[in-house]
Each structure stands twice: as structure tokens, then as C-alpha cells.
């Protein structure tokens, strides 16, 4: 089928795109910022994995990079923790939040609902630049003379509050970290406002809410979740900064002794920080994963050439997941001294999330079932998403129970759980989206052969890396420790840890295939046809006719083709 080449706006003027308010240009900026972030995040994880199995290794360039943190080339536990903090922060905020929601949401959402732009294009560009500034501040927090902050992406008080006395990087580094997160919250809020207003007010003629593709529904629900969660992080960040800089006592208890010094604060509560943080932190998990769910729903329907199974159920499942996601923050605090009665309530609510999640999974399988499957790279990543989401989700059922969590909470079981269900699953959603919408972003196609090779190796690598962590968790292998070799009881798990490290390095190496494919295809990829995936949604449509049908009308009997675009009149009947 001969189709005209897709027109992309401003493709040849990439640098002009730095100040462009066009939604595709902003999407590309987010995409490349996330790409930079994920490369950095992966490199940091490799440093951690290397250190875990060779804790005494002397590496010359460690000493050059961190003269204090790695004196003599050996990484100190504090440096390990600061790398852990930066890895977590980068991955959660700048990869899992920015890529699925901001990059793809900006790229696709306005077009899929028949709008020409986001509701507030200048605000949109401003959000990006605030996010970019936030990223720069985060990196600066790591460059401090005394190293980076140590308190993890959750920045638990009092470690994150008491200042330089708590360790290197806890001075200026931690302060900058909080400023970075506050800026990121503002950026996310502005994006959420933009997406919500766009969906509510800029839908094109005929695009009813129940005709929106599931991608748009999920970006919409995610934006609402961002709107409710990020202000709490912003408020908590403001309070903790006042504790650090203004001498207040919101999160630091009275009579706290650090080293041999009394901390001059009185009466605050570290638990209060945990409540505020996780009120944001748990919805953040869904902010990361819901857009992926939308992308996967959209792609599985397309590449199965079947209508999505249970469209309305999928919409309501997303809404329920988001709603319940706001009520379960306490399951991160089962071992923080929470009242056992509240633990039961949080546990029950947590289990309830399994219902809409299972519904989604079953609907994905039912959609693919009996379809004329097209195993493109995007489809493979979508199916991979379902696999890792189920695997990671099942371990969530264990962790949602206070009695089991008491054992698992500080072990590698949790590391395995959240990396699979939130990290890898969301990244698979991003990969799927990248392969699917690359033509929309750059007018060219990614190489499918390299893509499939990348998928299979990544899929195997992800399981090889994160599945064994469950067993390490069963064995009581604690997380956040920088060195297992000094504990006798951990000696038996060292072969497993070595395996994980080797897998992680392979998994990271495999990503070079993706980078090669990406940058090669930017210049040399095949020119994209107008509707490369024979999709029904409006981003591939060159007509501006009003929408007359739902988003997943595939394999309609009596039609000349096996799909009808949303704004296309039936020709067959």
C-alpha cells in the first residue's frame, strides 16, 4: 500500500525545538531528557552491583571521581548510599514519571483527542524547563565536595534532616536534593493542569470521553493523580527544608542524639514525614505505571487486530486503581510502628487493588486471545509488560500483608518487587511506546530486527536480574547494605548476588542495541508511511473529520480493510 510520508512538525529544526511550544517539540525534549536520565541511572546501578560483589576492589577512576568517597579507589558505604539515592531519584522521577506521562502524553494526547495543541502550550514548555532545571539541581546535589545525599529516594527523616552531622552529602547535597524535588513537583503540577484541561476542554468534535483511546484515559487519570499527590510532596518538602534551614521541628524528635551530639530540635515526628511522603509516594507508583497500562492496552488491541476486550471496564479499572492508590500509603509503613488496626485497613485496601489490576490483565489476554497477532517489537514489549507486571504484582500480594512484610520489608524481595512491577514494566511500556510512536516523533521507523533482538535479550535479562532477588529476599538478604561479605549469614547468598551482578551488566549492555537503533534510525531509518501500524486513532489520521466511532474498531466484518479510523465513515455496510 503506497502511503504518503508522514509530516512531522519541525523535524529538521531540532535545536529550534528547545524553545518551541509545539507539543511534539516539547515531547521530544522530555524524551531526550528521560533518555539521558535512564542512561545515567543504569550506569549508577552498575556501580552498585559491581560494589556489592567486589566491595574491596580498588578502582583507579573511582578515586579520581570521588577523592573522598572512594579514597584509594575503594567505595565507602556512604558513597554507595549516595549512588543508591541518585539512582532511585533519577529513575523514579526523571525516567518513570517523565517518559511515560510527559513525553508520550505530550506527543500523542492532543492528537489522539483531535486537538491541535495542549491547552496551555507556553506553560507546557515552562514545565519542561523546570523539570530540566530540577534535573540539573539533582546532579549538582551529587557533585558536592562532601558527596551526594544518603537518604534514598524516600529521604526518611531524621537522616535527611539533621544535616552534615549525619554523614557526607547530608549538608548542602541533601538541601539541593530537596530543592530539586520541590522544583520537580511544581513542574509535574503544571503538566497535570495542562493535561487535565486539554482532555476536558480541547477534545475535537465527536470525541466523547468514552470514545477516547485508553492511552488518553490513562494519561488523564494519571494527571489527576499527579494533581493530588505532588502538592503533598511539595508541602512536605517545604516543611523538611524549614527543618533543615529554618530550625523548625516538624520531623525531628526531641532529644535526638547523632554521634555524640544532641540535635537542637524538639518534638517532631519522623513518622509524619513517612505519612506525607508515602501519601505522595504510593500514587507515584501508579503515576509511573498507569500510562504504561494505557499504551499496552492500545497496542495489544492494534496488534491483535481486535477491539479491546471490555473498554469500559478498562476505564473504570484505571480510575479504581488511581482512587485506591491514594488510600494505601500505609502499606509502606507496616514496620514503622503503625497501629496494627490501621495496618489491617491498609492491607485490605492494598489487596483490593489486585481486583482492577487483575481485571486489566485478563482483558489484555482476552484481547489478544484469538486475534491475528502481529509480533512487532512494540507488541512484544507490550506483551512483555503484561508478563513482568503480573510477576511483579504477585509479589505485591505478599508485601501487602503486614505479617509477611515484617520479614520481607528490608530485604531484596522488595527490591525485586518494585523493580519488576514499576521499573521494568513501566520501561517496557516506554519501549513499546517508543517503537510505536517513533514515526510520529521523527518521521522514520526504528529497525524491527534490532528491536526484536533488543526485546528478547532485555526480557531474558530483566528476569535473570530481578527474579533471583526474590530468593535473596527469602534468605533474608537485607537491602541498602553496601557490603554483604562481612556477614557470615549472607555468605551463602553471595553466588546469587554475583549472578545478579553479571545479569545486570548483560542487561545494561543489551540496551546499547536500543541506543544504536535509536540514533541510527533518527538519520537512516526507513521513512514512515502515514499510518504505519494501520491504527484507528487520530494521531495517524490526516483528515480533520469529526470522530464518529470508538477507538478500537478492528476486524469489522464487511469492510474493505480490517480497521476503521475514528473519524472514518464506514464504507462497507
Amino acid at each position, binding site marked *: 500500500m503506497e502511503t504518503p510520508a508522514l509530516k512531522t512538525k519541525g523535524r529538521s529544526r531540532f535545536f529550534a525545538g528547545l524553545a518551541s511550544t509545539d507539543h511534539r517539540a516539547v515531547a521530544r525534549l522530555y524524551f531526550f531528557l528521560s533518555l539521558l536520565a535512564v542512561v545515567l541511572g543504569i550506569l549508577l546501578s552498575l556501580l552498585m552491583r559491581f560494589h556489592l560483589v567486589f566491595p574491596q576492589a580498588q578502582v583507579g577512576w573511582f578515586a579520581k571521581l570521588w577523592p573522598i568517597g572512594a579514597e584509594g579507589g575503594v567505595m565507602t558505604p556512604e558513597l554507595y548510599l549516595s549512588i543508591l539515592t541518585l539512582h532511585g531519584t533519577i529513575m523514579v522521577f526523571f525516567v518513570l514519571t517523565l517518559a511515560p506521562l510527559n513525553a508520550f502524553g505530550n506527543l500523542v494526547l492532543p492528537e489522539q483527542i483531535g486537538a491541535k495543541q495542549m*491547552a496551555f502550550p507556553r506553560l507546557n514548555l515552562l514545565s519542561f524547563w523546570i523539570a530540566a532545571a530540577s534535573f540539573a539541581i539533582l546532579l549538582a546535589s551529587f557533585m558536592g565536595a562532601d558527596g551526594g545525599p544518603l537518604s534514598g529516594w524516600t529521604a526518611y527523616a531524621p537522616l535527611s534532616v539533621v544535616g552534615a552531622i549525619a554523614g557526607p552529602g547530608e549538608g548542602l547535597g541533601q538541601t539541593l536534593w530537596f530543592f530539586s524535588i520541590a522544583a520537580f513537583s511544581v513542574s509535574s503540577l503544571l503538566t497535570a*493542569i495542562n493535561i487535565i484541561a486539554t482532555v476536558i476542554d480541547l477534545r*475535537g468534535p465527536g470525541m466523547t470521553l468514552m470514545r477516547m483511546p485508553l492511552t488518553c484515559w490513562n494519561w488523564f487519570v494519571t494527571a489527576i493523580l499527579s494533581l493530588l499527590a505532588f502538592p503533598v510532596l511539595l508541602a512536605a518538602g517545604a516543611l523538611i527544608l524549614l527543618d533543615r534551614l529554618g530550625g523548625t521541628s516538624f520531623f525531628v524528635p526531641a532529644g535526638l542524639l547523632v554521634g555524640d551530639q544532641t540535635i537542637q530540635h524538639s518534638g517532631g515526628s519522623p513518622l509524619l514525614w513517612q505519612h506525607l511522603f508515602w501519601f505522595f509516594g504510593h500514587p507515584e507508583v501508579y503515576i509511573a505505571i498507569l500510562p504504561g497500562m494505557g499504551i499496552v492496552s492500545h497496542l495489544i488491541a492494534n496488534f491483535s487486530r481486535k477491539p479491546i476486550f471490555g473498554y469500559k471496564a478498562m476505564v473504570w479499572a484505571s480510575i479504581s486503581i488511581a482512587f485506591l492508590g491514594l488510600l494505601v500509603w500505609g502499606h509502606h509503613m507496616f514496620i514503622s510502628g503503625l497501629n496494627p488496626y490501621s495496618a489491617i485497613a491498609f492491607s485490605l485496601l492494598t489487596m483490593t487493588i489486585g481486583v482492577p489490576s487483575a481485571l486489566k490483565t485478563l482483558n489484555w489476554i482476552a484481547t489478544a486471545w484469538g486475534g491475528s497477532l502481529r509480533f512487532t517489537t512494540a507488541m512484544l514489549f507490550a506483551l512483555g509488560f503484561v508478563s513482568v507486571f503480573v510477576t511483579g504484582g504477585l509479589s505485591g500480594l505478599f508485601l501487602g500483608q503486614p505479617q509477611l512484610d515484617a520479614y520481607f520489608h528490608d530485604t531484596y524481595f522488595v527490591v525485586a518487587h518494585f523493580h519488576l512491577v514499576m521499573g521494568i514494566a513501566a520501561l517496557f511500556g516506554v519501549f513499546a511506546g517508543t517503537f510505536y510512536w517513533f514515526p510520529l516523533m521523527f518521521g522514520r521507523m526504528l529497525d524491527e530486527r534490532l528491536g526484536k533482538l533488543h526485546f528478547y535479550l532485555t526480557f531474558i535479562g530483566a528476569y535473570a536480574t530481578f527474579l533471583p532477588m526474590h530468593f535473596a529476599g527469602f534468605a533474608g538478604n537485607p537491602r541498602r547494605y553496601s557490603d554483604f561479605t562481612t556477614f557470615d549469614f549472607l555468605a551463602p547468598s553471595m553466588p546469587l548476588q554475583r549472578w545478579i551482578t553479571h545479569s545486570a551488566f548483560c542487561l545494561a549492555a543489551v540496551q546499547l542495541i536500543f541506543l544504536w537503533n535509536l540514533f541510527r534510525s533518527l538519520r537512516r531509518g526507513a521513512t514512515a508511511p502515514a499510518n504505519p501500524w494501520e491504527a484507528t486513532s487520530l494521531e495517524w489520521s490526516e483528515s480533520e473529520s469529526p470522530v464518529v466511532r470508538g477507538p478500537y474498531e478492528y476486524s469489522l466484518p464487511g469492510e474493505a480493510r480490517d480497521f476503521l479510523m475514528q473519524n472514518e465513515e464506514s464504507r462497507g455496510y
Partner: protein
Amino acid sequence: MPRTLTQSNIGGPPPTLPEFPPGGGGGDDRDRPDRGGSRAASITGIIVLMCASSMTFAAFVSAMVVRRGLNNDWHALGLPRILYWNTAILILSSIAIDTGRRLLRRGKRVAFNWFWTVGTLLGSGFLAGQVIAWKQLGERGFYMAGNPSSAFFYVLTWAHAAHVIGALGAVMYVEYCALRYQLGPSRRTMVDVSAIFWHFLDVLWLGIMGLFVFWA
């Protein structure tokens, strides 16, 4: 927008929205293709922004409730009297701004300018009054780093003042356009959106005052 002002283009109601297509949204702004944005989107945007601000304040207040219950180190704050005057000034500014907005819909342009100017001045007066209140509290020994009640008072009033400064920026921009007779129908959305947010700051302030008068 026509530069020459006539009675027909300086007054009147805000532009009507295009007819909603069956079941759909407002669609693109058909008269301004490729610009994005529309009156309806601006109103939605400001409502959503108010939700975000409300969540921020809800987080502060919930932290305050928990913090107060944690220890017996909470000492009630004697509010400076000027805060009551500030409350009255803020409410009056809101009334002035809304009266102006209503007058503008009826085409009474000069009266709008007067009321909006009064509203802007009163709004600035509120901020000045807040600065005096903080100073008075400081003179009485209530600092940020002191008792948790004063810490929360400063947090909430600073956060509110930050909102007021932002809103004053918008209100002053409307004022600037109004005084230059550039407030044609296409800029009515700006007037309405600023007024809505200004009223929201009233409600927020009344909530904060209520909290400290009756509870903290």
C-alpha cells in the same frame, strides 16, 4: 482585536463558547488555530490549579493536626489584632474585584477601572498588613524556629502570601490592560480567571484564620 474602542467592543459579556459538538469537548479554538487554549480550558485550568493549591494546604494542615497531637509542647498563638483587619481588607478587595467584573459585563468600563483599582490596592494592602503581623509576632518572640504553633502559622501564612503575590501579578496585569483600554472581549477570560482565583484566596485565608482562632 480592534484597536479603536467603541461602546460595542469595550463592554458586553465574555465571548460565548462555540457550540459543543454532540458529546465532545470544546474542540480546538477554531478562530485561533494552532494556538491551543480557550476560555473553557482557562477556566478548567484555574479550577484544577485551585485543587492543587488546596491539596498543598491540606497537607500542611494535616501535618499540623498530627504535630499538635504528638507532644504537649504546643502553645496557642495569640494572634495579632491586625490580622482581623487584614481579613476585612482581603474580603473587601474581593468584593471590589467582583463588583468590577460584574460591571464590566454590563459594559461599564470606567466603573470597572475604579473598582478593579481599589481591589488591587486593597490586595496590596493585605500583603503589607501580613508583613506587619509577622513583624509584631517576631517582636513578641514568636519565631519560625520557636513553638510548633508559630512554625505552622508562618508556614501557612507564607504559603498563602506566595499565592497572593502570584494572584496580584495577574490582577495587576489586568489593571495595566484596563488602564490602557486594552481590555476587549477577548481578554475577559483573564479578568474572570483572576477574579475566581482571588476569591479562592479569600476562602483559603478564612480557613487559615478559622484554624488559628478556634483551634490552634
